[in-house]
């Protein structure tokens, strides 16, 4: 259960990044998975540079990249590299396209092209370091109150709480955060009132990419290469879960996405456990459950969790209860 929640938090980190810049730029960005893998590669490279001269190519890196307190600093380059790549892709590709009046579909397709280019660049790095297939390096384990918990799990909760708090502070207390919300709700009005749209969106993209990078490192520590594929495809293999969380949360809603990712994390991991123990089928099929949840939610609540009018729903339930009581009397 702790593991499921931690997995969900890592997913939430990645998906919240996506929804952060989706809310302002309205780009369904398929290159988001590449930022995830970029973060992971930056983490591994940072550790490799710190241990330069030792056996760091191939599986040798697994020995050094174990997730412990003394390696935490390497999360900073992961955040920065993923964030800067995201920022560069916004400034270099999406912003010029948006200036030309590209349709959402064209932006989406451009992001696919960007995804392939970034993936090739990562293959160059991973291939020259001989890292194309790696195992998860693992993490130091603690026993707190009789519960076995790894540092990566603790850190994913802490980071998620930090990110959520940071965004809450940013969006309410600072001018740039308020302008972020202004652009999200009405772009043309926001520009008319003197907000520099480019700067604000660039900030959102930088933060979004950075969160994706952090989530990527944690996800790699948890699961290793997904489905035995190259580590470069970590982001691509998780991209659908990211989108599922973002869609379930209502595309562009930051907190909705976090809650949706936690729900999907629990659903996926519990389903994977049941699938392997009781049904004796491969756990990779457990992806059916989160995807099924998302599709069903789309069917009934097209705007996702954030679009449900909770007060109305609760009122409806309460009213029906009152009616039942009235009928009973």
């Amino acid at each position, binding site marked *: 259960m702790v593991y499921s929640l931690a997995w969900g938090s890592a997913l939430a980190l990645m998906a919240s990044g996506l929804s952060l810049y989706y809310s302002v730029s309205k780009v369904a960005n398929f290159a988001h998975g590449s930022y995830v893998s970029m973060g992971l590669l930056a983490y591994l490279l940072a550790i490799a540079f710190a241990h330069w001269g030792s056996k760091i190519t191939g599986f040798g890196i697994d020995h050094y990249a174990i997730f412990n307190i003394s390696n935490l600093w390497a999360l900073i380059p992961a955040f920065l590299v993923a964030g800067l790549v995201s920022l560069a892709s916004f400034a270099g590709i999406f912003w010029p396209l948006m200036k030309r009046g590209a349709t959402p579909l064209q932006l989406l397709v451009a992001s696919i*092209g960007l995804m392939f*280019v970034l993936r090739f660049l990562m293959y160059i790095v991973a291939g020259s370091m001989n890292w194309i297939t790696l195992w998860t390096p693992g993490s130091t384990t603690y026993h707190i109150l009789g519960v076995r918990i790894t540092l990566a799990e603790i850190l994913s909760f802490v980071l998620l709480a930090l990110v959520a708090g940071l965004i809450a502070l940013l969006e309410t207390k600072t001018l740039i955060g308020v302008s972020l919300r202004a652009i999200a709700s009405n772009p043309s009005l926001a520009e008319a009132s003197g907000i520099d749209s480019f700067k604000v969106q660039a900030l959102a993209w930088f933060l979004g990419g950075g969160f994706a990078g952090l989530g990527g490192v944690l996800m790699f520590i948890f699961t290793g290469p997904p489905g035995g594929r190259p580590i470069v495809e970590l982001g691509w293999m998780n991209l659908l879960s990211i*989108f599922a969380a973002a869609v379930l949360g209502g595309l562009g809603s930051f907190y909705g996405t976090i809650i949706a990712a936690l729900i999907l994390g629990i659903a996926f991991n519990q389903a994977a456990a049941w699938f392997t123990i009781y049904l004796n089928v491969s756990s990779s099929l457990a992806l059916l459950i989160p995807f099924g949840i998302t599709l069903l939610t789309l069917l009934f609540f097209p705007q996702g969790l954030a679009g449900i009018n909770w007060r109305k729903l609760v009122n409806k339930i309460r009213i029906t209860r009152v009616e039942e009581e009235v009928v009973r009397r």
Partner: protein
Amino acid sequence: MNIISFLVTYLSVAAVYALLAISMNIDYGWAGIPDFGKAAFIAAGGIAAAIVATRIVPPLMLHMHPANPSKLSFFTYYNGKILPAITAHPIDTWIVFIISILLGGIIAAGFAVIFSYPAIRLKEDYLAIALLMAAQIVWLFLRVYTPIMGGTMSMTLPSPSFKPIARALFHSTSPSAIDAAKALFLWGLVGVFLYYAEKQMNSPFGRMLRMVRDDEYAAAALGKNVARARLESLIVASFLAGVAGAVYVLIHFSSVNPDYFMPDLTFFVLTLVLVGGVGNNIGSIIGALLIALLYRASYIFGTSLGFSWGSYLYYMIIGLAILITIFVRPNGILPEKPVRTPAWDVYALVRGKQPWFLRRILMRGRGKVNTGEKSE
């Protein structure tokens, strides 16, 4: 490898890509649906071919027991008995082929209804993601559920035999003659697809799809059912994708494996359409010819570099092709043409937009039309 055999194999690969591209062009190009589940619809053709070769043809035509790919004895029974029995007669391989393409199309059309149902009424982003999830689910399911195509192990399929055709056409059964017959057949199939797509797209149905793509609200205001139009175009395109998928596994690979239908395949097909020209069937075929060449060349060049990442060079090529197209020619090499209606033909004739050598042909049978040429 001499140049002619390279050309012939290249042409047959490009023809298979062109089939996929035409089916992508119908729903992406004409109806504006981001059909990111194309890999699943192509997989339907693969499923059909696998089922026909193991379950349907042996009991019905050969009086043999059907084979079950999930059993251990499958490979000795299937490879040892059923495959030689089917390939013994060229007609049998063609019967397998024809049943497979029909069944593949039907399964794909069924998939299209099921997968697009939750999101067909929503914004494009949602539909794209729902279909992509469906493609991922189908791929995972085929990998895990062995009774269809035996999990991750490749299953050989009875590829239709081109020997009789090569003998009739070229009076030889050398490998190059067989390859040439194959390429000819595939380009004939591309011609059939092209004819169907052009007819369909220049009909009132095709015009409605364009209107739905360009302005949903205007279409709804004029009494068109937008969701239904999208669903219909998705079904038509998926049927063609299922047919193309059966061709893809039976002729292109002559084997079947779930990893042929990875969700990446969708984006490859999308690249063909984008580069060639969105909404233009001829453009899609040109895109297929171009990208097949680039793909092949980048693979040969990348592997000859000697780096461990060299074989991934095609990602770069495809990615750059998409990005350059979006920036330089957002509508592709051949942009979309206006719908051909009789009225448009006459208008084009009057305004002189037809090439001079076509005017006489187009004028035939429209004698009373004032073309404006006589008064000049």
